[in-house]
């Protein structure tokens, strides 16, 4: 027989022999248990600088937050870059009622605003991309609790609602959150308020969040008011460094608004970041187990 014939027959014979011979000892093939699990770490905290994120608290989890903003940094060293100008602080908690629904309560220094908020995670982005987006609804009821203002309880109320849509791609999360806010009596929330002050504001929150590594992330947020707006108000912009210490998430940021909820950011921010009107602030988030 020619050598060429052997060379032709050898691969075929080898294949047949391999097929006929089964291994006697084999390990299981390793497969992921939850290939369609939700994408993790889409954000590191339930809020960014001032905007809410799609991240909710699952059942049995309690998030505590302390948010601070100070005066404008353009005060220079005389005002210690705004830290001497007093802080607006919001202290709040968010408790997971269900794996997809949480309720929160908080109080802010400015106007003694007390807010009750809820977040409902309708859709979670899946690892296998069978669901490409996170989608959550949020609502909040806010009341100005300052004494001596002469408003009825109903006049002090404001409402805010938003739809948050986010997607994470390779460590970069983008979120859009169209939102609307109603103010029962604008003069209880706007400064200054006039006869032509709108009692309803619409905005579009935009967040870009990028994980540098397991410890650090950067984010930017922008909240333009669409349509009618409070005279003299400016769109809010902020930039943050996120630090994950293993127990807490710190957000250290520069932002134009000193307010800590979207309804008042849209209504009352009077500073333009791009014109150098920004302030220092930091947020602290800590999650506790309720079980």
């Amino acid at each position, binding site marked *: *027989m020619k050598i060429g014939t*052997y060379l032709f*027959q*050898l691969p075929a*014979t*080898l294949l*047949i*022999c*391999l097929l*006929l*011979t089964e*291994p*006697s*000892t*084999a*390990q*299981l*093939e*390793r*497969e*992921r*248990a*939850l290939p369609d*699990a939700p994408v*993790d*770490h889409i954000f590191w905290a339930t809020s960014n600088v001032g905007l809410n994120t799609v991240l909710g*608290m*699952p059942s*049995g*989890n309690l998030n505590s937050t302390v948010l601070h903003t100070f005066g404008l940094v353009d005060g220079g060293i005389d005002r210690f870059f705004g830290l001497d100008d007093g802080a607006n602080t919001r202290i709040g908690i968010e408790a997971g009622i269900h794996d997809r629904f949480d309720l929160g309560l908080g109080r802010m220094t400015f106007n003694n605003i007390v807010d009750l908020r809820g977040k409902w995670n309708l859709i979670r982005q899946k690892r296998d991309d069978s669901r490409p987006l996170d989608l959550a609804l949020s609502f909040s009821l806010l009341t100005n609790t300052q004494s001596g203002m002469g408003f009825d309880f109903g006049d002090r109320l404001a409402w805010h609602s938003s739809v948050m849509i986010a997607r994470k791609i390779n460590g970069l999360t983008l979120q859009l959150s169209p939102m609307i806010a109603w103010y029962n009596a604008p003069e209880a929330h706007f400064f200054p308020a006039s006869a032509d002050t709108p009692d309803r504001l619409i905005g579009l929150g935009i967040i870009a969040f990028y994980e540098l590594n*397991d410890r650090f992330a950067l984010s930017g947020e922008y909240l333009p008011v669409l349509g009618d707006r409070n005279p003299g108000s400016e769109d809010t912009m902020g930039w943050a460094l996120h630090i994950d*210490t*293993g*127990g807490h998430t710190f957000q250290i940021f520069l932002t134009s608004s000193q307010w800590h909820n979207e309804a008042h950011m849209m209504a009352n921010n009077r500073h333009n970041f791009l014109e150098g009107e920004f302030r220092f602030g930091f947020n602290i988030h800590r*999650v*506790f*187990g309720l*079980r």
Partner: protein
Amino acid sequence: MPARWERIHPGLNFHRNILKLVVQLKLCLSVLILVISLPGLYPGVEKIENPAQETFTASYAAETHPVTDLIYITENGHAEFTSSVPLHTFTGVSDYLTGMIDFEENLIDFYLDLESLKTGISRRDRDMYRTLQVDEHPFAEFTGFFSGSVDPDAGGIQSVTVEGEFTIHGVTREISLDGTLEREGDSIRITAEWILDITDYNIEPPGILIYRVRDEMDVRIDALLEPRERGEM
């Protein structure tokens, strides 16, 4: 056109075919021997160093067990660990422990997707996954064998000892574990508990200063393995 010798004697062609068949059979036999001697040819299949396998298989057969093609499988076994930091203890659980026992081959193979472990606090889960570097090392694995006698058909709870390789965080170590085995109808239930020192596997206990997770954590598994034909594997 036929070769000259075929034209002279057509019967020679028959002898030539017989010769070709013999050569091919010899070739096939050679390759078969080669394949048997090189188990590494199979991707994902490793020959387990198992000095007890021959004696186990012989004793298993000697105990008049019928030759069976059954392998015992689970995909929803329970695994949990209990760990602690100063003044606080927490537990992580998963019901996605996957594994098999092949009594004929005396092979035990289990793995757990570490991202299926939940401690009850989402934030702590995230930190745990980071500590374990689950993106690079998604599984905890054990592959080994029964080092003593075991009778899967016996009633009651049997104490068993297994030896093998445990891998987590990309580090593999030889371990020996004590556990129990019990027949439940057609199925087999196994349990085991042991103490895992995470520093043996290059896992840095998370924490700040002295407030750190203890090096040693208690691990417990409990799984009901159901029979499956070997051919279904």
